[in-house]
Every structure is written in C-alpha cells, then in structure tokens.
C-alpha cells in the first residue's frame, strides 16, 4: 500500500517537473542568465579581471550627484502621485460604482497609448512656444519656462505613472466594507479619525504597492528626462544608458545598474518593513 503510494507520489513529482520545465527554462534564459551577466560585467574589467571599480564608480562626484538628483525627483514624483491618487481613490470608492471594470478602464485607457507619444505630447504642451505659453501669451501674461526643468520631469513622471498608484490603492479601498467604517463612526470616530485610524491603515498594502510601482520606474527612467529635460538634466538611468550606448562601457554600465538595483532593493525592504501584511508588491 505505502509502496504504491510513494511510487504514485514520485510519479506526480516527475509530472510536475515536466510541466514546469518550460517556465524553468524561460526563467533561467531570460531572468537568471541576464542577471548573472550583469553581475559578471559589473565586477570585471574589459579584459576580464575582477574589480570593484565599476561599483565604486557611483561615488564619483558627477555620478553620485546624478543619483541623488534621480532619487530626489522620483521621490517627489512618487509623493505627488500618492497625494493625487489617494483622495481620488477615496472619491472613487465613495461613488460605489457597480462595476470596478469601468474605473480601471478609465485609468488604463491612456496607458494603452504609446508611452513615448504621451511624453512627446507633454513636450509640445510645455515648450517655449508650446500650448501653455501660447495661451498665456494670448491673455497677455509672461511666458513660463517649464520645459527642461526638474519640474517638467516630475510632471512627466507623475502623468505617466499615476495610474500605477491609483489602481492598487483603489483596489484595496474598494474592499473595505462599509460596516467597518460605520462601526468606527458608531464608536465615536469622526470622519478624520476614521480616515487616519481605519481607512488608511487598512489601505497600506495598496499604498505600498503603489509606491513601489511608481518609485522604481521613476528612478530608472531615462526617456522622460530625455524628452522633457532636453538632455540637460542628467538622471541615473540616462548615465547608465550613455555608458552602454555611447561609451560602449558595458562593465561600467553594469556596475552602476547593480548599485541601483541594490539601492532599490533596500528602499523596498524599508517600505515593506512598515507593512508586514503586504502580499508582495509587483516588482519583487
């Protein structure tokens, strides 16, 4: 009896392995190997000697200040996204829409348009002779210098990544039952206390997801700073891109990528520490 059982179990095990084989191959080929290659390039020189110079490169004054600026801009963008998305998600929740699909669609729809196209559209709006300045000129106000400033980059990031903040927060908020909110009111809490003590803590997993999903792409993007920063404002993603494409320095680029990866990993670990119940957040 037990013998045939173990036989069956081992056969099942082999079956499972067989079925998962394509995914294992895929993961190895497209995730593990590229990662290992980056690690390899990151800790070697062009002629293959092991070195930590590529990693230390982040401490060169220009690179380091670029990293600091990148972190600053993506933090600001993430924060602005949160400040816009949270009240919006709250409002959407209180609308009590019958189908969540419509809400999701509303915010997904712009994302279906090409990311580059939308960013270039902003370029046209913000330009010296763009839409905003034309309107300002028409009513006799002085022109604004928005394009090629950090503000323009933040605006681009917020616009592009806002849906990634709204959707996870809205999903969590929509699941909070009215009974729980009414129970808090019943126990004497006013609207503000309900928001701070009940709704916000319960929505934390969504907030953490949103923070991750905005902060990480914002930190590594180079397209937005390229288009809206006019190449004048260098972000860390751009530096890495330049290493690969212009400097043909794969080792340097990989080294910086590794450092950035570890940095993001640390950031996320810190955020997640404050939300033990979070069910993993997209990126990791």
């Amino acid at each position: 009896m037990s013998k045939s059982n173990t036989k069956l179990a081992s056969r099942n095990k082999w079956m499972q392995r067989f079925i998962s084989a394509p995914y294992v191959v895929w993961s190895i080929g497209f995730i593990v190997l590229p990662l290992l290659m980056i690690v390899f390039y990151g800790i070697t020189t062009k002629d293959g000697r092991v070195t930590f110079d590529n990693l230390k490169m982040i401490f060169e004054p220009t690179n380091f200040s670029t990293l600091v600026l990148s972190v600053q801009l993506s933090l600001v963008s993430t924060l602005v996204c949160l400040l816009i998305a949270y009240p919006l998600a709250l409002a959407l929740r209180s609308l009590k829409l019958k189908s969540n699909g419509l809400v999701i669609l509303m915010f997904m729809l712009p994302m279906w348009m090409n990311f580059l196209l939308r960013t270039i559209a902003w370029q046209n709006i913000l330009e010296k002779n763009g839409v905003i300045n034309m309107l300002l000129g028409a009513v006799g106000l002085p022109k604004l210098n928005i394009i090629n400033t950090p503000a323009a980059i933040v605006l681009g990031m917020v616009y592009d990544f806002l849906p990634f903040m709204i959707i996870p927060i809205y999903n969590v908020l929509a699941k909070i039952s009215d009974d729980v909110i009414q129970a808090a009111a019943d126990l004497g809490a006013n609207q503000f206390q309900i928001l701070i003590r009940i709704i916000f803590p319960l929505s934390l997993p969504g907030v953490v997801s949103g923070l991750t999903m905005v902060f990480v792409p914002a930190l590594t993007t180079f397209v937005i700073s390229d288009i809206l920063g006019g190449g004048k404002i260098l972000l860390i993603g751009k530096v890495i891109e330049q290493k690969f494409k212009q400097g043909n320095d794969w080792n340097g680029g990989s080294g910086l990528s590794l450092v950035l990866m570890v940095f993001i990993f640390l950031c996320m670990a810190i955020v997640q520490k404050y939300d033990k119940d979070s069910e993993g957040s997209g990126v990791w």
Partner: protein
Amino acid sequence: MAADFAKGKESRPGQTEKNYMAQNNKLINLENVTKKYGSHVVLDDLNLYIRENEFLTLLGPSGCGKTTTLRIIGGFETPDTGRVIFDGQDISNVPPNKRQLNTVFQKYALFTHMTIAENIAFGLKIKKKSSQYIKDKIEYALKLVNLDGYGNRMPDSLSGGQQQRIAIARAIVNEPKVLLLDEPLGALDLKLRQDMQYELIRLKNELGITFVYVTHDQEEALTMSDTIVVMNQGYIQQIGTPQDIYNEPQNAFVADFIGDSNIIGGVMLEDHVVEILGAKFQCVDEGFGNNTPVDVVIRPEDVDLVEPEEGTIQGVVTSLIFKGVHYEMEVEANGFSWLVHSTDLSPVGKKVGIRVVPFDIQIMNKPESEDEEAVGVNE
C-alpha cells in the same frame, strides 16, 4: 388593529404589570418616521417607543423594514420625514458618532488591522480615556464575554462566535444607554446561536441597559425579548410580550410568522361561540358582534385528537412525521388540513375527532382591505 399602529395610535395590549410601571420611561421614541429608497417605501409613518432597560426585538421577514428602523436609531440612515427622540432630545440629524448608543453588526465589522485589545479600546481612545481606565475596561469586557486572555490575538484568528462576542465587548465598553444588535447571530451555526442567546440575556441583565435587537428568527425573538415588534412591509403588525405575540396574534400575518398555526376562516355567531368549518366551537372571545366573519387561529399543539365520537368535528390522519419532541400530523377534516402537534401517535388513515379547549381558540378580525390581505401569509 394593524391599521391603528400604522396611523400612529400606538398601544401595547396585554402588558405585564412590571412593564406598565416603566411605561413613562420612554428612552427612544420614533415619531411618524417614513423612509423611502427611490419610490420604494421601506417605512411608512412608523411610530414606536423603546423603554429604558427593555430587550426589544424587531422581528419580521427580510425587507420588512426592521434593519432600516435600527439604522435610523443608530444614525446610519436619516428618516425622510418624522423624528427620532432620544432621552427627550431630537436626534434625527445627529451623526452616529455623536449618539449615546452602540451597534453590533451582523458581520462583526472588527478592525482587522488591530488586535482584539485595540479593537475594544477603539471607542475609549477616541474619547481620550486614561490608559489605566482603558486597560481595566478591556479586561472587564473580555471577562464579560468569556474571552479572557484573548487581548493580543488578531481578529482573523478567532471563530465567528468569538468575533461576534468581541464586537459586543467593543460596543459595551463605551457604556452606551442602548445597544443595537443587527442580526448578530445570523452567521453562526445553530448550537452556537442558542448558546449566544443565553449569553445575550445574561449580558443584558448584568449591564442593565436597553437592547434593541433585529432578527428574522422567531425563536430567537421569543427566547430573549421583553417586547417583540412584528413588522412586515414597512408597517408594525403587532407589539407585545412574547406571550402576547404567540398566544394572541392580532392578524393572520403574525399568527403565521410566529410559529406554526392553523388559520381558518370562521363566523363569530355570538359572544363565546364561533363557527369553524360548519361546526360550532366554544371560545372565550367576545365583543365581535353577531354573525361576524373572522379569522381563527389554533396552534397545532392546542389541537386535541380524541375518539371520533368525542370530537367537535371528525377527520382522518393523512400524514405523520416524527419531530423528536413531538409528532407532527395532518388531519383532513371538513375540507381543511389541520396541522397537529402531539406526543401521542395517531397512525395515517386513523379516524379521529378534533377538539379544542375554548381558551386555545384565538379570534382575529378579518383584514379590512385587499391590500392588507396581501400583507399576509405568503412570505
């Protein structure tokens, strides 16, 4: 009679002396309360008072307006017209967090991100009580609901019955004058539900506060209540003690909703004599006039099966089911299928006589309109 309640002339027949003494102490008074959702009238000109320290149950089928009534008292709904008076003050537009009452929700509604102790402390922290006071209260409340030592657990780790007891503890630490309970035992299984009924009665007696309880379960209502308010389709059908409601239902709806009953059309020939299915029965009712059509309610346990010649009417047993405590039989007699509960067995096919003690025959006026008839039996 139902119409009387609807028009606001509230009376409570058959009150016990104890209740009568306390009658002046109306803690909550609903005056002419109407509530509509769109064109659907949920409550129609409802009048109801709740006395201090009573266990009052709003009983009725789903959609009868009982939960809406509770939510209006709790402040989660505002009446379209009418007033809610609490302790002499109009609180119709006072938000829930400013009312001196607390609610226990059907699905517990515990705060899942807080421990049990934090859940219980929530209301007290809002009121900025001292930490020692809060600590004592948590301990007291957990003891009261027999969950001593559960303070550091998370709500998810508790069973449904335990969660509901925590929800009760969380409400009562605030020392409300009234505790509102919205089908709190609805999600529990039968055995647990029965245990919790006794638990609630004990709590009520220990706390000495008013309980307003909503349920569709007539047994729950009969077991726990001082006063039962039977509702249907936005109207109060009858208000009374459990004994009143069970023994003297005022219309066919109440008779049918509370327990099993035989509801038979009859004619009140004169005082103390009613004609049912062509036979004359003695009863104790009077004042209906002569030859008045009435509805007669006879509870199945009040039908005595005797030898055919001893019965007022004769019939044949057509079905027999063993129910544990008693047998449930159906007896076909004079064109009506009588439901009979008895501890004595009469086999199917046996000829029997039916006899009813005069005191066990309950006479009701026929509904006055078609409209009210529709309110009746088909729930």
